[in-house]
């Protein structure tokens, strides 16, 4: 019955938490995820602040719970196309994109990928590594199935030939599924601000200028370099690393005037991890305000300064220039304390971009009939008293798609549970 069924759009940590809380209550949950696997951004991270837990280690049990739970049905590699109806009785059309692999038969052995002749940049690794046209986005993917990227597939049929389980089906067609649900939860997360919008930084032109998410993939043991931090240009270990905060955040030029809430925290975390791993590498963080609020964080920053020797410079750099021979990067900045313009050379620079709404957020909002705020995030019914309700009754939102909030993982999880409570409140009364 619709009253006991919920649709959750977006399989990141907040969507996963909402799914598990509702499923444990006896609700039937459809968890729709656009990419081939649930996990979201948290799956891409190496370690979380300030506890330095291995991100995948703490996420994986929740992902597996989702796939095993009798009340949760995963609809990965799928998108929500149409939503009709109202609270208590929504009719949703979900497009199941063909992955050309039968999820129920695939064992994830990977022989198909070994033989696939096509190599393309891996989105999960932020384009730093490569994957095949038939691929599993990351080793702990849920569901544990390969997917064919038809756009890049040359239809040679080798994967089908090599598959021992007969799971490859290159004739799969897209399928539309109609779902009747009582409530909807949106948890589609965020994208990164595109730093190419700041031409003076040179992102996209300089090899050793990377974003923080790219850094996470480099630090992660399951990433493109097996967890070894090396410079993209020459594979050497960087010895002087700089982090630049607020790239696009708090910036009127781009309308992203808000603070993204988590970047100061994660860059201090990354700095500590780097210093721990490579004691001969110096790390400098360029910041405007060091926003290290949150449980245990001020103490973590104190340790970063005193025990790990991370340098902090209060400045928002103006320009980055590349040495054409060494590919080192010179950062030009105003040292606000000394009152001088300075330039320092680094061999790797990490940009901490603003976290912005996903490119497809507005479209989904239109499909749902929900309002977005001036930044493009899903608008809360009341920012103080109804923070996880959207402007449509019966449709709720959690996680970063609602905007920065406190922004971190516990916050996303609390919001996920809070939307589960809202759904139960609303549907129990219907």
């Amino acid at each position, binding site marked *: 019955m619709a009253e006991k069924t919920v649709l959750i759009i977006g399989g990141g940590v907040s969507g996963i938490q909402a799914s598990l809380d509702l499923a444990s209550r006896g609700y039937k949950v459809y968890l729709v995820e656009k990419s081939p696997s649930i996990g979201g951004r948290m799956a891409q991270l190496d370690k979380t602040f300030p*506890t*330095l837990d291995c991100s995948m280690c703490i996420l994986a049990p929740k992902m597996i719970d989702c796939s095993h739970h009798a009340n949760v049905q995963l609809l990965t590699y799928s998108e929500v196309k149409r939503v009709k109806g109202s609270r208590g009785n929504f009719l949703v059309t979900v497009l199941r994109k063909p992955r050309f692999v039968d999820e129920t038969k695939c064992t994830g052995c990977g022989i198909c990928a070994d033989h696939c002749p096509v190599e393309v940049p891996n989105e999960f690794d932020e384009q730093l590594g490569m994957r095949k046209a038939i691929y599993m986005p990351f080793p702990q993917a849920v569901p544990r199935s390969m997917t064919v990227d038809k756009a890049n597939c040359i239809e040679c049929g080798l994967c089908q030939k090599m598959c021992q389980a007969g799971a490859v089906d290159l004739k799969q067609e897209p399928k539309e599924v109609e779902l009747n649900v009582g409530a909807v939860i949106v948890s589609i997360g965020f994208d990164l601000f595109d730093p190419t919008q700041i031409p003076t930084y040179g992102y996209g032109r300089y090899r050793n200028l990377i974003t923080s998410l790219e850094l996470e993939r480099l630090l992660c043991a399951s990433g493109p370099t097996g967890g070894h931090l090396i410079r993209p240009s020459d594979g050497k270990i960087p010895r002087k690393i700089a982090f630049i905060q607020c790239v696009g955040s708090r910036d009127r030029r781009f309308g992203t005037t808000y603070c993204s809430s988590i970047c100061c925290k994660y860059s201090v975390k990354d700095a500590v991890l780097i210093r*721990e791993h490579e004691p001969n590498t110096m790390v400098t963080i360029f910041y405007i305000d060091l926003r290290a609020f949150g449980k245990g964080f001020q103490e973590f920053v104190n340790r970063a300064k005193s025990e790990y020797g991370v340098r902090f410079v209060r400045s928002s750099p103006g320009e980055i220039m590349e040495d054409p021979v060494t590919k080192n990067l010179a950062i030009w900045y105003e040292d606000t304390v000394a009152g001088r313009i300075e330039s320092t050379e680094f061999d790797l620079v990490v940009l901490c971009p603003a976290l912005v709404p996903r490119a497809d957020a507005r479209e989904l909002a239109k499909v749902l009939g929900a309002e977005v705020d001036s930044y493009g995030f899903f608008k809360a019914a009341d920012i103080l008293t109804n923070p996880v309700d959207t402007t449509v009754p019966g449709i709720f939102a959690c996680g970063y798609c609602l905007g920065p909030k406190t922004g971190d993982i516990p916050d996303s999880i609390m919001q996920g549970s809070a939307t589960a409570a809202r759904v139960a409140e609303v549907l129990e009364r219907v």
Partner: protein
Amino acid sequence: MEEAKVEAEFEPVILAFCCNWCSYAGADLAGTSRFEYPTNVRIIRVMCSGRIDPTFVLSAFRWGADGVLITGCHPGDCHYVQGNYMMERRFAFLKEALGHLGIEPERLRLEWISAGEGEKFAALIRDTTQKIKQMGPNPLKTM
């Protein structure tokens, strides 16, 4: 340089009993926070320090432990209300018993560590290892 000295150096084996709710969690926190300490300790998890039968401690020394460390929740905070008080009573008896058996009572140590005290746990292991090293091997081993 240091290596020859290290080979001859005595490396004690220390057994640590940790209660699940407080001190074992504190030991985990030391790990999550990456506080380093020497490798001489072997941890045995029990649900409560109140579980620790005196014979566990005596057997440990009999089988060659150079030191035994018992950890539990702070007084008043025991997850099971008074388990740690019962352990404290046994501790007094054990100290005396060890003396009678020819083992220095200082080889047995009781400390309270909460789930939030990762740094304290690491410091405790460093300190205990250092002290036992100075005492030398368990006298029963050479008998």
